[in-house]
């Protein structure tokens, strides 16, 4: 009986010691704990130049030009845009990658209201030459920007930039500084400023749908 009691005492002491040792070892080297980090993004909008209605950034200026005769061999008068910062931005902050389409139309012919004659620049064709400005755009911007977009027909929409499904997220900036205005040789020009406006529209529908 004594042997049994002694054995139980030893066993109890052994277990207790082992337990205390293990507990001490846990305190010295604790298990790594896990914490969570989280961020949520809410859907934004699809806008042109952050919703601005007056796009001065996209102003096209074909300069101040002398009225002079064409050189021999010229087919028409060509005037280059001198606003080197001319650009248009589409911000797709929806986060859905649903794609979009940016259209532009010329609202009227170039007009000089102060002129007494030749008030309209008849036959003048505005051609937009767009290039994706990767420096100004969001990293990895992948919208498609078109060149040689001729706005010959007034009030007719033309696609300058578009993004297929899965593309065009963030800011996509189209540099249009390389645009030019072509005026037929037969068009009479009056002194002064001829101007028009362009209306830009972004649609939440990809161009290929």
């Amino acid at each position, binding site marked *: 009986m004594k042997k049994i009691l002694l054995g139980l005492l030893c066993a109890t002491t052994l277990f207790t010691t082992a337990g205390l040792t293990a507990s001490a070892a846990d305190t010295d080297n604790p298990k790594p704990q896990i914490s969570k980090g989280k961020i949520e993004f809410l859907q934004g909008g699809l806008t042109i130049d952050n919703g601005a209605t007056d796009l001065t950034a996209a102003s096209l200026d074909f300069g101040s*030009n002398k009225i002079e005769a064409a050189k021999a061999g010229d087919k028409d008068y060509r005037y280059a845009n001198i606003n080197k910062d001319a650009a248009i931005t589409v911000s797709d902050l929806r986060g859905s990658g649903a794609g979009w389409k940016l259209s532009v139309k010329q609202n009227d012919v170039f007009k000089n209201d102060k002129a007494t004659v030749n008030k309209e620049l008849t036959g003048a064709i505005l051609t937009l030459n767009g290039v994706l400005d990767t420096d100004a755009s969001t990293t990895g911007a992948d919208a498609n920007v078109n060149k040689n977009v001729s706005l010959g027909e007034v009030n007719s929409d033309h696609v300058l930039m578009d993004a297929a499904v899965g593309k065009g997220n963030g800011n996509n900036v189209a540099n249009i500084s390389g645009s030019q205005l072509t005026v037929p040789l037969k068009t009479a020009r009056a002194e002064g400023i001829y101007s028009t406006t*362009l209306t830009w529209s972004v649609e939440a529908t990809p161009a290929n749908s």
Partner: protein
Amino acid sequence: MKYWRVIVIGISALLLWGWLLTPIASAVSTADSPAAIQFEGKTESSSNQHGGDNQFHVTEASKASSSMPTKSDVKQPERQATWGWLPQTNEQWWLSAFIGGIGLLMILISCQLITYLKKRSLLR
């Protein structure tokens, strides 16, 4: 009377569906930008418009200012839409849909009320 009600409900549903669906496909954002060119010198006459014939008598002008028009120079044209009677912006579409929906709802409620009152008067 029943047919008439079914037709009204059907047309209302179609109209509401049309009003609500259209903004999805229409432009969500529009904006205008100016474009301008300036000419200096003597205005050309229409009678001698043959480029390269050296028929122009151009007088030198002293202007050197930028041709970009100021806001007063640029005549902002009225928004010319293909369908002038339709709302042109997303917000206008939603407002129209809301007003249209409320209007149709009022019509339906009025119809129900009239029917109820008629039935009630017949019972008396």
